[in-house]
Each structure stands twice: as C-alpha cells, then as structure tokens.
C-alpha cells in the first residue's frame, strides 16, 4: 500500500467497485445499499482484513464496513482527507535548563494509527511530543533524534550497536542526560546489552516506554516521559535504567537497574519489576527519591563504548524430559553460546549431561541461570549441580536469563576462549551480579490473602 495509491488497502472485488463508481479513499460518498442509504467518507482498508468490504466513516464519527454484495450504487459527493498527526510545536529552549536528548527507537511511547494493519505504529518527532505533553518544557531542553522506527521485538544487534555509539557521541558532546524511547516488550533486553556496551557513563541513561499507547486518554506515556526526562536532567544516578510505572495508578514511577529489570506482565502498566533486588529510586515529574546506593553523576565526559556482539547464542529453557538432541542440534548449527534457564538452583536432567559435555568440548560456552528468576544459582547443593560444574558449565550467580544472554553475546563478541569467557561472565559490570540479595528484594504478592488484601485496600494499586 503506497502512500499515493488512491485505493489504500482495497483489493478485488471492492477495488473494481470503487473504480467503476469513480470513488476512492477520502471521498465523501452516498452509498445506496439493500439496507438503505449509507453516507460518509471512504476510509483506507486494512490489508489484514478481507477484500469484500468498503469502510466508511459516517457523520456520527462511527465507522462501518459495507459488503460489496449489499451495494447498489456509490455516488461521490466530495473529498476530505484525514491527517492523523499530533500538532507539532517547536520545543522552547531555555539556556538555564539542562539538555536532554531523547533517542527514538519506536514503540508506543509515541504512536499513531496505521491503516495497513488497523493497529498502531511508532511515530516520533520532538514537536509532536511537545504538542502532546507541553509540561516537558518545564523539565529540560529536549532534543530528539529518531534512530529507528521499529517495534521492540524487531530490535537486534544492529540497533544495539547504533544506540551505544550514539550514546557515546552524545556524552562526549556534553548532554546532561539521555532518554531512550523504546517498545516495552524487549526493553529489558536492550537495557541489559546497553549496560555492557556503555560502561561507566557520567550521566543518567533512561529507557522509557508505555503500556497504553499515547493515542489513549488514559495512556501512561506522558507521565513516563515526564518522569524519565526529569531523571535524565536532574537526578544524580549515572546508571543505565528503565523508568516505568510503580503502581498501576498515576502516581510514582520506578527506576530499575538495566540488568536487573524484567517485564513481568503482558499488559499491566506496572509491568516492570526489579528482580532479586530493590529498585534504584522512585520518581515523580518533579523529584527523585533514591531507594539504594548507586553510581553518581559526574562532570567528566568519559565513557567506555564496546559494541562487541556475537549473535550465535541462545537461551535454552529447560523442561523435564528435555531431549539431548536439542543441545546437539545447537552445536551442529554452529552456536557459540548457550544460556540455560535451569530449574530450581540451576539444574537439568542428567540425560542432558553427555550432550552438554560434547558442546563444551566443542568450544561452546554453556552458562547456567535459573528459571525461577529470583535467587542465585547454587550448583553445589545437589549432585546434579556438581556434575554440571565439573563439565565446565558457568554458574551465573543471580543474573536473570535475559541479562545473562546479552552478556554472553557481548562476551563472545570479544573472545571464544572459555576460560576468558568464564572470567568475563562472572565479573559484574553493571549490577548484573550482586553480592547480596536484600531481604526485601523478593516480593511476589499472593492476592486474596488477608494481609495482602489489607495492603491493597490501604494503598492505591
């Protein structure tokens, strides 16, 4: 569906009917049907829907689809093109305010309607953001740069490298903080890899998205944007962080360490949680309240950018009865690294051992994480674990599987020497391994229990 096609999305048989009637998309028409007259504006047709209906927007604002077999006659009476675009306003510059750059990757933090699919697609411009959330001008001077326009599931090594390099450039240019607009699905993957590729940044680097797209009145996008730009401009936290809702209510946001954060619900606003630790800080559009110690903002412009990446790495989510030929297949297909999400303290079935041995002997790095997500790998507790250690499996402490995956990609991009890989994997760079798990880190509420219900009735969810 090209933009200048006057029959956007229409295919046979609806296409012929439109052509025969001399009507096209954005034409005002009167349609005579077996169900009486319909009047309205012809809208584009989603290419994922059938080819037998013509969609019109009636005067009431409602849309409806008219089946070609119901149509007796179409009469064009006018033309009115719709332009779904947030009014662009130039972002005001105030030299007393700090400078923040917002890097766009896509995602629902800024999105607009897409007639091809009938769903929403990413859209991004500084003027649009200011037009939609004028309060941003109170927080900082915002510059935006669209790096890519992709849904988060389409982010990959190429985008990670470009992002890391751009961040390095911006830091050297003197920016006070960086915000990265990102789709939420793989935000924690990107946060993790950036934590390795961008080391010791002097300023806050904040990934932000939204769980309800910005074309909805109840969207979390505006609040997330304000929280993240405030963090980037004014906070003292020189870390790579994710900034998303704390509760589902429009209250505070949480700042999570990039390697410890995970999306934990498919649709809740408060989906991001820090795993095996507590978040860095709480944030409102006008203040940040730290919850624990972290690296502080510096005035120097030094940062280490290392964009090494090897994509021949996989996550093997273990299940009882897993057949060893899966491991063999990975080796045969030339994989360099396997992150196992093991059961319990980091276990797999003994039947897998010979295959894992073959893999390690073939030079494949095999590392262990836990599918419980919370807690450490402890492979010395049971024989199963001890045997795996003996094979040369690297126990990744309390790295969450996605953070371990990204770290292994990054490590293998630099060396295939398994001893070196082990050393790099087990040397923490950005909190991906922590020495101590605080007593209040693990928290999965069980709803329905009186004390939890009491809590829920006291605080806004």
């Amino acid at each position, binding site marked *: 569906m090209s933009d200048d096609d006057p029959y956007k999305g229409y295919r046979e048989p609806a296409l012929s009917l439109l052509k025969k009637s001399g009507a096209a998309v954005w034409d005002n028409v009167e349609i005579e049907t077996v169900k009486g007259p319909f009047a309205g504006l012809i809208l584009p047709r989603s290419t994922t829907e059938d080819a037998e209906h013509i*969609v019109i927007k009636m005067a009431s604002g409602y849309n409806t689809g008219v089946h070609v077999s119901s149509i007796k006659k179409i009469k064009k009476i006018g033309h009115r093109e719709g332009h779904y675009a947030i009014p662009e306003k130039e972002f005001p510059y105030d030299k007393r305010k700090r400078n923040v750059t917002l890097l766009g990757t896509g995602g629902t933090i800024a999105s607009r309607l897409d007639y091809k699919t009938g769903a929403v697609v990413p859209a991004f411009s500084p003027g649009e953001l200011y037009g939609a959330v004028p309060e941003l001008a109170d927080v900082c001077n915002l510059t935006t740069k669209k790096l890519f326009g992709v849904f988060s599931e389409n982010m990959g090594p190429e985008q990670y490298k470009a992002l890391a390099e751009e961040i390095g450039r911006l830091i050297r240019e003197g920016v006070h903080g960086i915000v990265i607009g990102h789709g939420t699905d793989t935000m924690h993957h990107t946060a993790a890899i950036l934590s390795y590729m961008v080391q010791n940044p002097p300023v806050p680097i904040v990934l932000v998205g939204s769980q309800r797209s910005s074309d909805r*009145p109840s969207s979390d996008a505006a609040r997330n944007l304000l929280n993240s730009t405030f963090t980037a401009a004014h906070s003292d936290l020189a870390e790579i962080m994710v900034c998303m809702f704390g509760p589902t*209510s429009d209250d505070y946001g949480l700042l999570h360490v990039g390697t410890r954060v995970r999306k934990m619900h498919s649709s*809740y606003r408060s989906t991001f949680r820090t795993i095996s630790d507590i978040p860095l800080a709480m944030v409102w559009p006008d203040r940040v309240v730290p919850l624990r110690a972290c690296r502080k903002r510096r005035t120097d412009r030094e940062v280490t950018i290392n964009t090494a990446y090897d994509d021949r790495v996989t996550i093997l989510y273990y299940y009882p009865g897993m057949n060893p030929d899966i491991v063999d297949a990975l080796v045969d297909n030339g994989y360099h690294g396997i992150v196992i999400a093991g059961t319990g303290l980091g276990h797999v079935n003994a039947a897998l051992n010979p295959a894992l041995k073959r893999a390690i002997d073939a030079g494949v790095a095999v590392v262990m994480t836990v599918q419980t997500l919370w807690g450490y790998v402890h492979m010395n507790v049971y024989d199963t674990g001890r045997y795996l250690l003996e094979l040369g499996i690297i126990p990744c402490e309390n790295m969450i599987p996605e953070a371990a995956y990204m770290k292994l990609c990054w490590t293998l991009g630099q060396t295939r020497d398994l001893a070196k890989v082990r050393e790099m994997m087990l040397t923490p760079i950005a909190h991906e391994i922590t020495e101590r798990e605080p007593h209040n880190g693990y928290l999965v509420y069980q709803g329905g229990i009186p004390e939890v219900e009491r809590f829920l009735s006291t605080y806004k969810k």
Partner: protein
Amino acid sequence: MDRDLNKLGFKCGVEIHQQLLTDKKLFCRCPAGLYSTEHHAEVLRHMRPTLSEMGVYDGCALMEFKTKKEIVYLLNKESVCTYDMDDTPPFPINEQALEIAIELALLCGCGVVDEMHIARKQYLDGSIPTGFQRTGIVGINGSIPFEGKKIGVSHFSIEEDACREVEDSGHFIHFRTDRLGMPLIEVVTEACFKSPEEAARGVRHIGRLLRASGKVRRGIGAVRQDVNVSIEGGRRVEIKGVPRYQLIPALTRIEALRQKALLEIRDELKRRKITQDSLKAVEEDITDVLRNSRSPILSDAIAKGHRIRAIKLVGLSGILNTPTQPGRMFSSELAGRVRVIACLDEIPNLFHTDNYPEYTRNHIDSRAIRLALKLGPQDVGVIVWGPEGDTITATAEIKNRIVEACDGVPCETRQHLRDGLTDFERILPGADRMYPDTDHPPVRIAAERVERIRNALPEPTYKIEERFRSYGIPEDAIADLALSPRIKLVDELARQKIDMKLVGRLMGQAVRSLGRQGISVDKIDDRTWIELATKLLSEKVPQKNYEPVLKAITADPALEISSLISSIKE
C-alpha cells in the same frame, strides 16, 4: 403553550440507552449486573485528550482536560478484572450481547451492518478508566411505527456501560466500576418529536418495544435517555441520563424556553454592538480589596488562603439578570461553567454587581468591586473565589461563556435537576471524539446470522397492542397484557369469543393489582385461565371479586374453580 413551542420550531430526538440481560460484560468475562457499595482497592488515574482519526481534538475533551481531575476508581473484586482497570486489552466481543443487539436492531426496523467496527468514543470525565467507551454501530436506517407516523432510527449501537459516579468534589472524582463494561444498546432517533409530550410517548413506545424481547435489564439505571432539544435558530442541547420518560415533557419544554431566552440575549448583545471580537473583559485578582469583607463566604475563602478574582464585562449591564429558566437567570449559565470546569463547586460560586447578595455591609464590598474594576454604569463585574489556579480558570470560562452568548445557544450536554431544570455538564462532544479501536478487529455480521435472528423475532409490542385493541380489550389493560407472557392465551380467548372486557379486567387490572402486592400469577396454566374466564362470565361474578379469586388460585392451584366461585358468591 405547545402551540408556542411549535412556533419556536421545537425539535426533539432521543438516545435511549438500555442494558442487555447478559451473564457477562461486553469485552471481558466479569459478571454483569453485580452491584455493590463495597470496595477492596483503589486506582488513581488522569486523562489527556487525544486526536481523532481525522487528526482533530474534540472540544469536549479539551474542556474536560481543563478540569484537571484526580480520578479515583473503587474496585470490587467480584465485579472487576484487569480489563475494567484498563490494564488488559479487550477480549473478543460478548456474542450473547451481540446476538441480543442484532435482535433489538431488527425490532427497531434497522438494516444490520455487514461489518461492525468498534470505535473508541472519548470521555475524559473519568467515567471510563480507558478514557473512552468502546462502541459499534449494529444497525442504521431504522423505522418504528408510532401513532400513525414513524419514528426514524438514525442509528443503533452496542456499547459498554460506564462507571457509577460516587462523589465529585473539587478536583477529586470517585467512581465505582461495577456497572462499567456491562452491555448496553443505544437507539438514536431522528429529531422527529414535535412536542414534549410526543417525545415522552415516543420514549415509552420504544422502551416497550425493547422489552418485548425479554432480553433487556429492568430496574433503576437499566434504561437512561439522553434527550436532544433544539429550536429554530438555537442548537442541539443534550439533556443527559433522564431515567424516566415522565420527566421528559417538563425538561424539554424548559429547555426550549431557555434557548429562546438565550437567543433574545444574543439579539440584545447585537443591539449593544457587542460581538465575539469586540467583547471587552478585564480580569484582576482583588483579594486585597475584599480582605475585610463581612460576607461569611468571602471571609471564609480569605481565611483559607484562597484568592478572589474579578472580571469586568464591559457593556453587559443587566444581561446577567435575564431569566433563562424558572427561578434562574443568565448568571446561572456562568456559574455552571465555573462549577464544572474550574471545579469551584460550592454554590454560590460567583457574585455579580447587578444582583449583589445581601449581607452585613455588602454595599461597601459592592462599591469596592466597582472601584477596583473601574465599572461604568453599563458594565457588570463578576467575582469568584477559590484556589488561585481555579479562579484564573473560572474567569477565563466566564469570558468564554459570554463569547458564546454573542452567538446564541452553545451546544452543551446538560444534567437534569428537579422540576425540569437543567444545569451545565459539559460541552457537547462531537464526531471528533471518535477513534477506531485498534485493539479489536472489525466484526463480520453474516447475512445468514441476521436472517436466522429475523425469523425468530418476537412480535413487536405495537402490533400486539393494535390487535388487542381490535379485540375490544379496555385501553388500560392493553399495555400490561402486551408485555405479559399470556399473549397467545389472550389470542385464544378472543378466538373462543370470550368477552374481552372481562379478559382485560381479569388478566390486566386484577393481575396488575396482585403484582403490586408481590403476587405472581405466572404459575396459573392456560387451561385454568380459560376455565376461569368462562365461569366468571357464566356465573356473572362481579369484577370486584376477580382479585380474591385469583389470589385464592395462586395460593392453592389445586382448588376446584366452580366451588371457588360459588363460595365467593356466597
């Protein structure tokens, strides 16, 4: 009176909202119809206006954004899920609800659409946590026979119901989410009613037609009407959520006369050469001027640290005192805007110099206001009080309302009060608040499905009533009988040539009277009814005894009818 309304070009159309009798809500699997005043958790949200599909902001949405409300939802665990909280996308539409909606659309004579597109209709008042109502057109081009004419149905939609408002005070509004998401249909008529009484009868007519299906909810809040009124030169004003058709005549008559008054104000402003562009208004914070006021209201505001703000309306002397509704003046139009948009909701929320309130030493304040604003004899000054930000919003809205007065009648949604009075609720939303629901693909409604439903349609109430009338059933029994489960039985009695006056008194009036006492006659079988009617007639039992006879039968269905009748005769 009605002839006068006719001359004014009175026009009225209605939007009837009727809940459907389904087990579950429309876009989630929560139970429908489970109301409670208890809650287990709260969620806080804010709303922002978003663009329509055509790239335009809706005026109503922008107005509601100005109110800056903190919206609190009270969640009851039995009736709410993460969909209602707007933390989960919609599930596929409830097929049971859609099936009923198609049936009702056909009863209203509509053509059923081939493909339903779910839209998001923006509501920024917080009544729906998403900020929009999911709604879709099921039918259009409907027509319902009515008093020898037709009621045109411009469209028929299915939608989710909104929350119940618990409290709206200042910048906080509380809602319960139990009603939220329940399936609802909306019947939108053309502006075809030419008098207030006709509109009320029309609403009753349509309501009865919907009830004929037996698949709609009854009881308080199950049916709500939005009543649209306009007169020649005026504009469409919507009176929102009228619960009973009996309220419609007074509401619509008073609204028509309010529009007439607003048009007269417009003409008077024109005579004074005041236009939207030439209107002069000066605003000023005059807290210090009134710091020693003896007004309990003003001194209380000052004690709270609130501000008093004044606006001078040049050349508007006398206008604010123009009557617009019984016992109300044009100043109440300003107060309505200030109450809703600036959230200054303690009434009175404004004073003005043309009708300054009585209190100790009020003349000193009045003079101080006149001096501070440098009011000339042709001018009027209005003051408002409250938190500073709200007073700024308030005076801006007062000016906006005067600008609109230069143009006549603003399109508004108004809430109904007692005695047919109305007050401002919001700017009337338009087509620009509609946006396609990108979460829900279009729903194909196949022709075969529509035909299957059409073939099983219940007989429309108006046809049954017509037939019953032809049988000679008394008029006051027809309405009840036509909605009773005994329609076929009445036809059978007519076929057997039984006196239909008796049938009306027995099965209409006596049954209704028992119903009021909570006694149901549904267990009496057809054979018993026929025998009863025959015997009552042949034994010439007087009408006053019908009710005791029925009562005795419902109490003991095994009673022998002949002996019962003879015992009653004695």
